[in-house]
């Protein structure tokens, strides 16, 4: 049996952003373990300082090209709470619909483009387009539909235009929503087949007790709204979030790490599922059963399955939101105006977990202080801990397999180490 290993994955692929895995094992013991985040520091907190309150959502959306609706929403919610603006019910439903689109899009991208290649032992979706065109087409089709939700509500696939402090500055046409509903209803067949596909994949047996943190709403499954909730000590409260979650820097990472008094915790689809499974649509609960995902599951690999369960829920949710919007009517509206300036918090469930924005706005409407807590930063410590505990269970396997397995573990968390300098190089044939 191999007792010594130096595992060095330079720039983990099929994750958002730049990170390295370094694991040194001597005589079956982990001596060194790091998930190095080599991404450039991004400075959004500095960029926003001194800018006007109604520029915040535009600037902060650019933190991420995948979860831009989440950042935009956390931003407008923080501004609205700091300025006393109240938004209309229609505006809230439209934002919730945009959330459905974004989370679906993000989950499908992760499951089909980033995770699926592992199950087929290929490097990307590109070979699957040739070897399994039906499967690739299914993923591309589901992703396109999810993007279409974002386009109809927000104006385009990424960086929503219409979500503004005080409400929305654009409402879709009834025809667009009706067509969207039809397409969503038709997408269940492809989602069912995706479940069948994932039912067939083996999930490593790996459990470890951990705290799960997510939002929990007065009603419904939380995305746009809710209060922070911990699987270990129930409700946290918005104002207490930064007291419970402590961010700190480590030398090997440009992204901050975070911990609670219980130590390591996890945010994201699995945390939301564990804290809110009763709120899922019955169809999504059925999907969870088929995927062997049970409440209280603490296997991080099952985050993939939890995302798929959420896709079913979100499709049902989007259809019901469209019905309510069509009943309500889609008259254009003007966003509310600020009533005061002060301090405010905006909390949402981004696809990858709880997202926190907090701003202090001065009398002139300029932002003076900014604090953001990003889902992936909250998960980094948990990923590192899991890597250490997981790698010792597979030391008897060939080195290549160990490397692939630890990469899949990082991938299951769906980390978003958003980038400053991505490179994509193309060779002409």
């Amino acid at each position, binding site marked *: 049996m191999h007792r010594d290993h130096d595992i060095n994955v330079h720039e983990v692929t099929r994750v958002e952003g730049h990170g390295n895995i370094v694991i040194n094992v001597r005589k079956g013991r982990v001596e060194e373990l790091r998930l190095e985040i080599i991404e450039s520091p991004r400075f959004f907190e500095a960029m926003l300082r001194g800018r006007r309150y109604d520029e915040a959502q535009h600037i902060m959306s650019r933190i991420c090209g995948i979860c831009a609706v989440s950042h935009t929403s956390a931003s407008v919610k923080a501004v609205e709470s700091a300025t006393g603006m109240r938004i209309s019910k229609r505006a809230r439903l439209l934002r919730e619909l945009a959330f459905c689109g974004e989370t679906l899009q993000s989950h499908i991208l992760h499951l089909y483009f980033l995770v699926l290649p592992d199950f087929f032992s290929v*490097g990307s979706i590109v070979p699957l387009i040739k070897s399994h065109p039906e499967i690739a087409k299914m993923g591309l089709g589901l992703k396109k539909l999810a993007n279409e939700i974002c386009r109809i509500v927000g104006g385009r696939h990424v960086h929503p*235009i219409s979500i503004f402090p005080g409400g929305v500055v654009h409402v879709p046409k009834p025809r667009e929503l009706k067509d969207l509903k039809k397409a969503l209803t038709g997408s269940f067949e492809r989602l069912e087949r995706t479940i069948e596909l994932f039912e067939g994949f083996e999930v490593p047996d790996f459990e470890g007790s951990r705290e799960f943190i997510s939002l929990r709403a007065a009603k419904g499954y939380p995305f746009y709204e809710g209060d922070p909730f911990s699987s270990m000590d129930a409700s946290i409260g918005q104002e207490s979030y930064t007291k419970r979650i402590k961010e700190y820097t480590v030398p090997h990472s440009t992204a901050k790490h975070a911990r609670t008094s219980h130590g390591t915790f996890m945010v994201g689809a699995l945390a939301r599922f564990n804290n809110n499974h009763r709120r899922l649509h019955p169809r999504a609960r059925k999907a969870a059963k088929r995927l062997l995902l049970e409440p209280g599951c603490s296997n991080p690999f099952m985050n993939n399955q939890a995302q798929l369960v959420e896709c079913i829920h979100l499709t049902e949710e989007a259809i019901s939101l469209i019905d309510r919007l069509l009943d309500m009517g889609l008259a254009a509206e003007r966003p509310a105006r600020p009533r005061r300036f002060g301090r405010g918090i905006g909390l949402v469930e981004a696809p990858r977990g709880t997202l926190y924005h907090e701003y202090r706005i001065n009398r002139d409407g300029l932002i003076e202080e900014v604090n953001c807590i990003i889902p992936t930063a909250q998960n980094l410590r948990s990923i590192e801990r899991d890597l250490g505990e997981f790698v010792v269970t597979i030391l008897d396997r060939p080195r290549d397999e160990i490397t692939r397995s630890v990469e899949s573990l990082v991938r299951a968390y769906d980390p978003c180490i958003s980038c400053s*300098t991505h490179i994509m190089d193309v060779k002409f044939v």
Partner: protein
Amino acid sequence: MVLNCEDEFPDLVKLVDIVNFREAMSEKSDDYDVAFVEGSISRREEIKKLKEIRKRASTVIALGACSSTGGLNCLRNRFPVEEAKRIVYGKDAAVRKIKDTIRARPIDSVIEVDHYIHGCPITKEEFLSTLKALLLGKTPEVPNHPVCVDCKMAGNICVFERGATCMGPVTRAGCNAICITYGSICWGCRGTVDDPNVDAHEETLRRYGLTADSVTRSLDLYGGCTVRKKTGRGD
């Protein structure tokens, strides 16, 4: 955005070999003809990496606002680098990986760039038309007229008439004025046209009762790194 070309992606991979796309692929190769570079320069080590890419690729394309104009990243240049580090990282700003940070800048400040795909986000139409032009051996075309022209064609009511500030008069077109069509303003994400008439823009802003401060403010949202070069103003 590249992965959002759902309909075109299967055909695209038939025409070109994507040899290095770390976000979506495990296979890596440094043998390539065309390099798309995203993001602005933020650390010294990136300059080295970029020069390496320039040496290998016969064509380098700046993809998106951060890469082509420095984008929103240049907003942090309003603060000295040390202060920006302190704002975000506090006493931990001395950590080596953060220490290497320099003022944000577009990639053409360091290497020669052959083509630009502007905007934040880029449009997939422009990405695909650039790729098509390259495949046909043509030079991709970049619009050099202001967004106002697109906006008129889209049939929008002028943002200034609504009492808001708009960067449309000086911003490079090519987006069909989508932000204004969807109820917002032009933020200037595509950078200015080659020869922006900033004086006329300023006069427009004044005519509608907007202050000099709002002029500078709207210019440096996306123009922090480039407007000074073109007009002697900005950051």
